[in-house]
């Protein structure tokens, strides 16, 4: 079955339930329409809402993430620049002065003073030899003569030529960073210049980020030791509690839940120059995402309102529509009943009128016979005409019998006008109906052929309505045939539950088009007369009795109506 077919069937199934009893029918229709409309409106709405939410979420995230990333990156660059500057000046000093010049304390002091004027944050400056001994020192600490050979930085600077330390607590418990450069000079000697940097500048740099209350920016080293004080995560040299990405990478932003159970967006930007530092900027997701959350709750609110509005409107609409349908149905039912009734009455009326018409002839005969007798007595005094008179009287009596039979038929018919279920012999009913049309058949030379099965099982039905059905169809057959046409009526037992009657004529027949609409109300092929309801009502009666009517016709050849009736009637709402 094609999908279109399936779809049509589904919709039809939802909206069409003619076999349900009335009260249920409208309840079910209402429910079905309601569900259908709700689905049609809410599903797309939901899909749209979900898609928008998704899109917004990712775009907002981008809007949030990117500035974060950028800021972190910028700050990282600032730090890098800072370090590079300091390193650069120390390198310059190392390159410009000789070992001897630098090992001279007074010289070193002079150089250092000049340095301090130009560059901020340098705390000291010192020369260290290959053996790791501090040969000269300018600064506040007592480093002169100190041996660094065992320290890891010394090893590192020997290998790498540059060194930037992690933050350490210097003397006086302030955080410091040490930088060192190495220059190889003739004779295989080393010239190592070391300087300590005061990290207060770090805080300034971070302060210049102009962060808000929900943000926290700081440096950590690759081992996760906090290098500048963090608002959320600890002081200098505390362990950074959040797992962070290792290795080398560009600036990235990750989502993490911190130990205080806050959802954070954390940007990491490892400094690329020679140090172990990673710039960290942590911001509370809720704060960052506040605009998103506001938007989302607004959207949710709007969605909820929409859904509620839709449901209310659909409910009201469905109610109104179904009520209209119900009203229309009821009106139609009423009008139909009215027409059905009129049809019934008028067919009875027609029969009665037909009877009145029929009685005429026999009465005319009686009249003439009696008149003749009178004449004979008046004109011809030969009362020997005994046989003659007796003959005349006999004729009168015969005519009286004829009238009697006709009126008896009418009486029987008049008596049976109430609806009641009786055991009907269809053959007998058909023949009775035909008796009303005898004269017409005679006048028009219409051949009536009856193949009525003997012992046709009786059916339980309403006599009046069955009469209406057959009278209507047989009347139509009479109308369809020309004079000298033929009408064949057959009755048989169709199956164990059903009886069949067919009425076939060799009249004008019907085209395919007409055939399709033949049972439609108000469809008529008679130009002036006829409401077009005869067959519609007939069909309705047959259906109501639990039976069916089928038609076959060929234009120019004839028509056959076949009526199927159940042996046990299933009468719906009574007439």
């Amino acid at each position, binding site marked *: 079955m094609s999908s279109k077919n399936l779809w049509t069937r589904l919709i039809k199934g939802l909206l069409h339930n003619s076999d349900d009893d009335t009260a249920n029918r409208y309840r079910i229709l209402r429910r079905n329409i309601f569900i259908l409309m709700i689905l049609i409106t809410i599903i797309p709405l939901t899909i749209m809402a979900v898609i928008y939410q998704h899109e917004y979420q990712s775009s907002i995230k981008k809007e949030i993430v990117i500035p974060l990333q950028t800021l972190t990156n910028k700050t990282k660059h600032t730090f890098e620049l800072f370090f590079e500057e300091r390193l650069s000046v120390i390198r310059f000093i190392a390159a410009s002065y000789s070992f001897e010049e630098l090992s001279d304390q007074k010289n070193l002091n002079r150089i250092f003073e000049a340095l301090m004027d130009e560059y901020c944050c340098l705390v000291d400056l010192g020369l260290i030899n290959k053996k790791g001994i501090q040969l000269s020192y300018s600064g506040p600490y007592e480093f002169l003569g100190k041996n660094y050979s065992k320290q890891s930085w010394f090893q590192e600077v020997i290998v790498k030529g540059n060194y930037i330390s992690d933050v350490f607590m210097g003397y006086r418990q302030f955080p410091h960073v040490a930088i060192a450069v190495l220059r190889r000079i003739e004779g295989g000697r080393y010239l190592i210049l070391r300087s300590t940097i005061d990290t207060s500048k770090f805080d300034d740099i971070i302060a210049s980020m102009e962060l808000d209350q929900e943000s926290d920016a700081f440096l950590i080293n690759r081992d996760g030791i906090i290098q500048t004080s963090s608002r959320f995560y600890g002081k200098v040299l505390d362990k950074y509690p959040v797992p962070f990405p290792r290795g080398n990478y560009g600036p990235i932003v990750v989502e993490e839940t911190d130990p205080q159970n806050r959802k954070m967006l954390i940007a990491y930007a490892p400094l690329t120059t020679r140090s172990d530092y990673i710039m960290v900027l942590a911001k509370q997701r809720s704060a960052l995402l506040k605009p998103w959350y506001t938007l989302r709750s607004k959207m949710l609110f709007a969605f909820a309102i929409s859904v509620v509005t839709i449901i209310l409107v659909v409910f009201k609409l469905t109610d109104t529509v179904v009520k209209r349908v119900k009203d229309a149905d009821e009106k139609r039912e009423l009008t139909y*009943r009215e027409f059905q009734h009129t049809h019934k009455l008028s067919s009875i*009326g027609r029969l009665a009128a037909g009877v009145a018409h029929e009685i005429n002839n026999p009465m005319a005969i009686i009249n003439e016979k009696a008149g003749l007798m009178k004449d004979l007595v008046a004109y011809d005094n030969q009362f020997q005409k005994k046989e003659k008179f007796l003959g005349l009287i006999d004729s009168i009596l015969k005519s009286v019998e004829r009238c009697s039979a006709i009126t008896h038929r*009418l009486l029987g018919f008049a008596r049976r006008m109430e609806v009641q279920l009786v055991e009907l012999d269809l053959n007998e009913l058909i023949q009775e109906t035909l008796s009303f049309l005898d004269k017409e058949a005679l006048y028009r030379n219409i051949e009536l052929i009856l193949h009525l099965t003997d012992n046709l099982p009786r059916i339980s039905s309403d006599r009046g309505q069955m009469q209406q059905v057959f009278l209507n169809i047989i009347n139509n057959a009479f109308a369809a045939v020309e004079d000298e046409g033929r009408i064949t009526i057959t009755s048989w037992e169709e199956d164990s539950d059903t009886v069949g009657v067919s009425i076939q004529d060799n009249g004008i027949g019907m085209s395919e088009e007409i055939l399709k609409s033949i049972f439609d109300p108000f469809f008529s092929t008679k130009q002036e007369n006829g409401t077009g309801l005869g067959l519609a009502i007939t069909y309705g009666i047959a259906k109501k009795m639990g039976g069916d009517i089928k038609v076959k016709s060929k234009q120019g050849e004839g028509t056959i109506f076949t009526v199927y009736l159940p042996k046990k009637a299933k009468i719906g709402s009574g007439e």
Partner: protein
Amino acid sequence: MNKCAEKEVAFFGRITADITHELKNVLAIIRESSGLMGDIIAISPEAIIKHQEKMQNSLVRIKDQIERGVELTDRLNKFAHSTDETMAKIDLQETIEQLITLAQRFARLKHVVLKTVPPNQEGPPITLVTRHIQLQMALFASLECCFTVMSAGGEINIGIRKTKGKNTVHVVCKGDLPSQSEFVRNISESEKWPVLQEIAACLEGSANLDETEHGIVLRFPEEISR
């Protein structure tokens, strides 16, 4: 509306049955008259002369009955045609006259005479657009109400009058009747009174007891809604 419709069929059946019964009577008389003549003839040709008068009487009777039969079938025919359309434009006076002929037999059984006098007004006949059979039922039910209250030898007159610009049908009883108030009570309590009310409702009209005369006043709209 369905209730109205159901009763129409019953009414039709009743009237038709009634006419048919009368026809049967007609036929019976013809039968008897012919039988009598047959008997006389059977005796001898001379007997015919001897009983000439009886013979002639029989013939006259037959002729009369044929006339009657013809009249009855006319009535049946007209009545049958009132079912052609449920709603029709009908001539009120004609319907009254028709109904009276239809009800004659019933009236005769109660020893009451039915009469109608056409309204003495010039101009077109008074017509109503209404349910033809129901209207006849209304008139008939009014008669039935009166029958239950009247004694033998009375007379009922059905006529159209114009009251306050509206046409009304007055069913007036004459004869040996109780006082106005008792008459009113009797009719209101009669079996057919609620039936009449129902029918009047189906016609969107009303049936009330006359305040001045012994009778029933029927009011119907000129055109009833479908």
